[in-house]
């Protein structure tokens, strides 16, 4: 545009001078000719930049900051007013430093771009660096993208949960934390049986033995084993309530991460199903590698819309081992009741962890944005839905989403026991 305009004006003046034979036009075309000429002389003969980008660490937890270092070395001729800009993914925010520069680069000169980023959960790709070089007056400009790719994984936050007091009916053979209804070594009292040679002295039940004439009795404790647990994360678009930039889905992902971390840490086999636009399975597994797989799946979890999986009834349930423990993380819609109660009917043990969407929105809205009556009706509806689920034998944990997640998860076991007692008393 600039080159075209300057050349056009120059030739108009020049041609006017030739046509009218007025030397003033020729004279006035000289400043433009000088301007274009200097620009032409300043064009670099070649551009030879060596660029490297260091992102350390390449994975970090949401809310943390990491440092990105871009090193530029000019191995070619002098570049005047060269623009170098690192193309940052939209979902990443720069918190400190600079992502672009405009400078003169002499041969063998070294420049650095150093900045800190933070961002949303997910996998973010850096496309490359945009380089604009040419003359200093912007008439002849060469734009190119230096394709230095980079990747940053921003993991969901996870919070410490003391325990999840679920009691899976079916346990595995390895030592874990869930009572297995089989006598053996453990902490919780299970039974009294006749003393057998080899029983430890401290297991002898002296009061029971005293009642007998010639026999000793020893205590048996309940074995504590690991279990197979499936986590189901609701990623339907309608389950994601958003107020400004805050999203209920993020809270659900963080809850799932915290629960998964604890369960895997305790040696259980954990599977993860994320359903929204499609089904994302992470099959049962345990150990550090499996924890990484689960984390990777949760890192890239996104909400989506699907006609099929919009209804929970279409979820394939055969993959869940019979009578296994299922932890369902969702705000829960009224239509979900049928599927959840049918799961319970098929003898699965279901725990619903439900961040309350009403308290989530109320905590972030101004009081003028909602009507008191509407809130009361919504609360009554939700209370009714949750009590129906509890009556079906499903354990429900209603988390207050207006509180910071670490606070609501900190209250996790206490709230759970309270609810569990409530279920027992109601049944």
């Amino acid at each position: 545009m600039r080159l075209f305009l300057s050349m056009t004006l120059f030739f108009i003046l020049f041609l006017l001078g030739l046509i009218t034979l007025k030397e003033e036009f020729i004279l006035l075309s000289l400043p433009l000719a000088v301007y274009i000429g200097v620009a032409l002389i300043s064009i670099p003969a070649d551009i030879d930049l060596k660029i490297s980008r260091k992102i350390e660490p390449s994975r970090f937890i949401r809310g943390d900051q990491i440092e990105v270092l871009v090193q530029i070395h000019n191995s070619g001729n002098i570049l005047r007013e060269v623009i170098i800009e690192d193309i940052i993914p939209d979902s990443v925010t720069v918190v400190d430093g600079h992502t672009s520069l405009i400078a003169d680069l002499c041969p063998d000169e070294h420049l650095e771009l150093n900045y800190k980023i933070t961002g949303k959960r997910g996998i973010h790709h850096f496309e490359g660096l945009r380089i604009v070089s040419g003359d200093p007056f912007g008439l002849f400009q060469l734009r190119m993208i230096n394709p230095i790719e980079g990747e940053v994984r921003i993991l969901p936050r996870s919070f410490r949960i003391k325990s999840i007091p679920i009691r899976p009916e079916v346990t595995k053979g390895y030592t874990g934390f869930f009572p297995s209804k089989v006598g053996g070594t453990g902490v919780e009292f299970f039974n009294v049986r006749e003393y057998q040679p080899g029983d430890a002295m401290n297991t002898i039940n002296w009061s029971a033995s005293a009642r007998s004439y010639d026999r000793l009795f020893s205590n048996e404790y309940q074995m504590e084993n690991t279990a197979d647990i499936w986590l189901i994360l609701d990623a339907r678009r309608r389950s994601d309530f958003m107020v400004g930039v805050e999203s209920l889905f993020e809270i659900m992902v963080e809850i799932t991460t915290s629960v998964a971390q604890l369960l895997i840490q305790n040696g259980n086999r954990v599977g993860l199903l994320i359903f929204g636009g499609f089904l994302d399975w992470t099959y049962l597994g345990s150990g550090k590698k499996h924890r990484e797989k689960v984390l990777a799946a949760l890192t890239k979890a996104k909400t989506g819309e699907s006609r099929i999986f919009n209804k929970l009834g279409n979820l394939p349930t055969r993959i869940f081992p019979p009578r296994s423990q299922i932890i369902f993380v969702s705000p829960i819609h009224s239509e979900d009741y049928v599927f959840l109660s049918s799961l319970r009917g098929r003898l699965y043990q279901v725990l619903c962890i439900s961040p309350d969407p009403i308290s989530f929105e109320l905590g972030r809205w101004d009081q003028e944005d909602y009507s008191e009556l509407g809130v009361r009706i919504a609360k009554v509806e939700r209370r009714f839905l949750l009590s129906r689920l509890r009556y079906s034998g499903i354990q429900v944990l209603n988390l207050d989403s207006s509180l910071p997640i670490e606070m609501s998860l900190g209250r996790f076991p206490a709230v759970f026991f309270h609810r569990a007692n409530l279920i027992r008393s109601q049944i």
Partner: protein
Amino acid sequence: MKRIEIAVILSIILSTFSLGFGFFMADGSEFSILIIVLSLFFLFGYWFKFYWTSHIFLVINFVFICLGIFISIPIWILLITLIGVIVYWDLLNFTSRVNNLKNADSIFEIEEKHLRRLLIVILCMGLITSIPLILEIQLNFIFAVFLSLVAVVGLSQAVRFYNRSF
């Protein structure tokens, strides 16, 4: 106020007042008022970061300069105007290039260098245009044909260079 802003304001003042003064001297005071009003508009354009207005400013002033030649405004006035207009056009382009950069590193140094380069170019412009002014070269047919040939050769070289480089 940054030096670049001062330079922009100085360039617009220089070009406006020289052209306005030229038209005023040639009994075109209504044109002078129009030029001042338009310059105020372009100054506001700069203030509100409408950098594209610099192209319009260049074209409008170019038209006024051509008109000025026909109504015999002194050539040195038109030269000052043209240099002022080119400086304004260049500085606005530079400002827009810098402002388009997201989160740019310190631009103070490069601003200074750009202003220095522009000053050298202005001096070159003054020097090169003053030579024919002093020598009072008359444009006849032979000289015009010679200049046309030079222009054709220069243009073809520029196009070749441009195609090779980009």
